[in-house]
Every structure is written in C-alpha cells, then in structure tokens.
C-alpha cells in the first residue's frame, strides 16, 4: 500500500489540467456572479417583493416578456432562412452577408438606435407612412420590437448557421431525390438535425432582447421595457430605485430561459 501510494504521487507531478480548468472557469463564474450577488445583497427581499406588485414594474415586465418573445419569434422566422442560405450557398458574397449580420453586434446599441431612427423615425419616409397608417414605429411596442430584433436577431442567424452547416448536405439531397420537397426536407431532415443549435441561438436572442437597452431607449422608450424602467428608476431614485427592478428582471429572464429550454427540449 505504502509503495503504490508513493508511486501514485510521483506519477502525477504535473499541474492537474482539470484543476487549472476549473480554477479558470471558476474565476469567470465568480466574475459573472459577484456583481449579481452584490446586486441581490444590496436590496432586502421584502423590498423586491414589494416592488413586484408595482404597476410600473408589472407593465415593464409584461412589455419585456412580450416584446422579447415577439423579437425572438421574428428573429427565428426571418433569421432561420437567412442562416440556412448562409450555410448552404456557395456564393462568394455570403461572407459579405455574414459581415452585415454581425454588424449589429459591433455597433453600440445606442448608435443602432439612432441610425434606426433615421429610417423608422417619425420624420423618415417609412416611419411617417407607418405612423400615418396608425402603426407608429417609434414610441410603441413595434419600436421596442424593432430595436430588440435589430440587436438580438444576429444571434439566431450566426448560431443557426453553424447548426445548419453541421447538417450533412448529402442528407438533404437524399431527401429531395426521394421525392420530398424542399419544405418537407427542411422540416423533417434539416430542422430536426439542427434543432439543438437553433434552440441555443433562439435562447441567446431572447436573452439579448430581454436585456436590450441602448437601442430601445432611442427608438421606443415607451412602452417601457424592464431595462428602460431600470434606467428611469435609476435616474429618478438612484441605485436604490434601480436595484429591485434589476433583480426582478434577472429573475424573470432566467425563469423565461429555463421555460424556453425545458419546453423546447
């Protein structure tokens, strides 16, 4: 016993890679968590519960969940075909299109909001026309969705593109050669095989939409989403006003993500 235990010690003198990994990963997790814990600790639980019934908070939560859901759906409906095309096309300019898709990520959201205003604002042709038709694109749920979709939908496209690329094209050819339409092929072969990646993308998009602030602030402001409400609370009341709303946002977002992933998986 003594011998083997000595051997065992000399046999693993190198730094354990798993330990290094766990330490590095743990540091990152702590880095994510520390501010959140600090956030949670800064507000008594009673205060949070109290604010949960506050109509402005309820309205903001409703608006956020509704708009983020609509944005995620729009991002999926419009993004999946684009992702599929990006994954499948042999055209040289797919890279140019991909660059376009990544641009909203690079652009600071506030700038995104400002440039979106130049297109959808009440003074721009599209915005004015929509407004005249009784469907204003700013200061409305539509505006919120426009802003969230702009910043969040690239996640669906980028992630779903990778998922589609992982589906062997031969399988699609096989399906069509067996007499199935492109639509049937997509539904029964491509989508099921790409589903996990697509779900990850939709999750990211939903999360990003829930957290969207800069562009929403510029494009819509009303109806207030939770991030805007946090901002308003902060500006009016300082950190003490903003923290409870921020905590409620985090709780709602996490709950929504858990539900999204449980239902879909």
């Amino acid at each position: 016993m003594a011998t083997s235990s000595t051997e065992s010690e000399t046999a693993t003198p190198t730094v354990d890679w798993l330990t290094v990994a766990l330490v590095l990963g743990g540091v990152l997790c702590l880095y994510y968590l520390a501010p959140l814990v600090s956030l949670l600790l800064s507000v008594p639980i009673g205060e949070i519960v109290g604010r949960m019934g506050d109509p402005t908070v309820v309205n903001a939560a409703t608006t956020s969940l509704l708009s983020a859901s609509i944005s995620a759906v729009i991002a999926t409906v419009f993004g999946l075909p684009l992702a599929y095309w990006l994954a499948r096309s042999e055209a040289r300019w797919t890279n140019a299109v991909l660059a376009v898709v990544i641009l909203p990520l690079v652009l600071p959201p506030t700038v995104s909001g400002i440039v979106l205003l130049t297109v959808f604002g009440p003074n721009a042709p599209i915005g004015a026309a929509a407004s005249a038709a009784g469907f204003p694109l700013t200061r409305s749920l539509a505006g919120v969705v426009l802003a969230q979709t702009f910043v969040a939908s690239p996640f669906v496209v980028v992630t779903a593109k990778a998922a589609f690329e992982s589906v062997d094209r031969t399988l699609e050819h096989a399906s069509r050669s067996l007499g199935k339409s492109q639509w049937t092929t997509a539904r029964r072969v491509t989508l099921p095989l790409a589903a996990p990646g697509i779900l990850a993308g939709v999750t990211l998009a939903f999360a990003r939409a829930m957290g969207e602030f800069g562009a929403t602030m510029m494009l819509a402001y009303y109806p207030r989403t939770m991030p805007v409400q946090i901002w308003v609370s902060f500006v009016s009341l300082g950190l003490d006003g903003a923290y409870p709303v921020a905590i409620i946002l985090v709780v709602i977002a996490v709950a929504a993500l858990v539900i999204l992933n449980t239902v879909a998986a």
Partner: protein
Amino acid sequence: MLAIDGLTKSYGAFDLGPIDLAVDEEVLAVLGPSGCGKTTLLAAIAGVTDTDAGTITLNGRDLTDRAPEDRGTVLVFQDGALFPHMTARENVAYAAASTGKIDELAATLEIGDVLDQRAATLSGGERQRVALARSLAADPSALLLDEPLANLDAPIKRRLRDELRPLLSSLSIPVVYVTHDQHEATAIGDRLAVVNDGVIQQLDTPSEVFARPATPFVASFTGSTNLFQARVAEEEGNPVLEWADHRFDVADDEYPVGVDIWFCIRPEYVTVVDDLAVEGRNNLDGHVRRRVFEGDGYRIDVTPEGADDVLQVTLSPPDYDWLDLDDRDRVRLSLPQDAIHIVGECDRTDAD
C-alpha cells in the same frame, strides 16, 4: 429511357462533358477513376447539382429544369446518406407509400432484423441495404447509384454485388451505376461507359470494352496492361505491326502503312509456348523478369528480346506449376493475331 444530350458542367479547372447518353431499361455501369466526373454526372441527372448546358429527359419528360424531387430519379449515395435521427424503418418509411411496401423491401433486402435500429448503429453492409430499400420505396423511374459498395469490406462487397445484379435488372427501369472498380462495373452493368476527365471514352458491352478498348486510357484502366506503340507495315498485302525486333500479323486493316499506332493485348491472352523449337508468325522470345503470385493465379513479367518494355502474362496455378519457370529463363510467347487490338493512332494522347 433516360436520355442525356450535350450535358456540360464546369467547376474550377474541371470540365464535365459534353455527355451524350441514352439508358434504356438496363443497368449502365459508369466506370472511371476518382475525380473523373462520374459523381457529378449522377448529381446532374438527379438534379442536386446544376449544369451549364444540355438536356436530360426521362421517358420523354424533360427533367433539365426540374427540382430533384420532381424528376422521378432516385440517387443512392456512396455512404447511404441514411437520416441519422431515424431508425432504419423510419428511413425506409420516409420514402414509402405504405407499410406493406416497407415489409416487402425489408424482406427483399434482408433488413428485417435491423429495421428498428438507429441508422448510426448499422454495419456498412446493413446501411447500404437500408439505403437501397429506401430508394426503392420511392418507386423510382430511374435509379442512380454512386459507388454504393465503395466503402464496404471486400467480402460484403462481393456478396452485395452478387445480389444487386438480379435486383437491379428486375426493376425494369434505367439504372446508372457509378463505380471506380472494374470488377463491379463488369459484374453489374449491362453496358459499360468508361469516363475519364469528364468525357465518355467508350460506351459498349463490358466484354467489348475489355476486349477492344477505344483509347489507351480505357485499355490501361480495364486491365489491358500490355499497351505498346508500334508502326503499321505490310507483308504480302496483309497488315503487320512492327514492334521491337518483331513483326506481328494483325486482324485489323483499318490503318494505313507507316502510321504509328497503340496496340494492346490482355495478359490472359498471351500464351507461353512450351517448346522453344516451335516457330510461329506471332511468336516472340524473351526472358522472365519477375513472377508474382496474385491469389487466384500468377503473373509473369517478360522482357522481349530487342525491347525495353515488359510484357505481362497471366498463368493459372496448374499451368504455372507445369511450366516450372524461374527468373531469367528464356521463354517463347505467342500473341494470337485475334487478341492483338489496335487502340488507335499515336498522337499527343498518353497511355495514362
């Protein structure tokens, strides 16, 4: 009847075609080395790749601009392309109109035992059987097979090859069977198209292609390893070939005197004359350079006198034992007049 007219497709530095082909209710084997364009040809017929020019018709219907699902052609991919998220049964059911059809095909292709396994757990042979069942379930008007046996181990390959021949014949539809394996091509094809560099070099029955290759490439790719250059001459009004120090009588009188040509003779047609005293017009003496055991027989490499080339002779084991040859032995070979085939005139074309 599957008819292909003037089909061309370029990608990168490679050009396919123009291809002209007419496939009746028969099995057409397309034989060629990898990269010769044979898979692209199938993909073009099936509509899963686009083409630059040409038309494809099936039983009179123009397929050229149709979607793959609207052609009536079914393509069987090299690795089977089974849907991995489905069982074998679900794969077949994907294309089948009825469960009766599934059971029938499962019986024919002997996959009843594995129907409820996930596609990923099947062995290579099982995978290809399921792929075939699935393709037949779709009730094809033309069946296109892309090296379906290429990735299988030799014994399975042999067994499936033996089963495929009658199965494909029984379909009574045009079948195009692509392969790079000459044995597979001859075993399965009613006719044989040899393709190189995107062009059909020869299209005929397998025996005709093997006996009378149309180009040096076809000759070498089909195993006519004895391929040489010679000059056409004339003796007493009959054509002869001048090769090395020898003159051979030939049956073919198509080429004018003085022309340089390629001729070939399959190693199994060359015979060893047992008595060095026997004289004959088409005899030739040489020395044994090497003897190779090839499993089902022996191959003897002979250096003819007055030539640097090597002439190959195949011998059955009994013949080999009886002749009792050693390296450097002097042998007399006979090249039967009928077995000598003039491939064509020499030009910039190379043998390989």
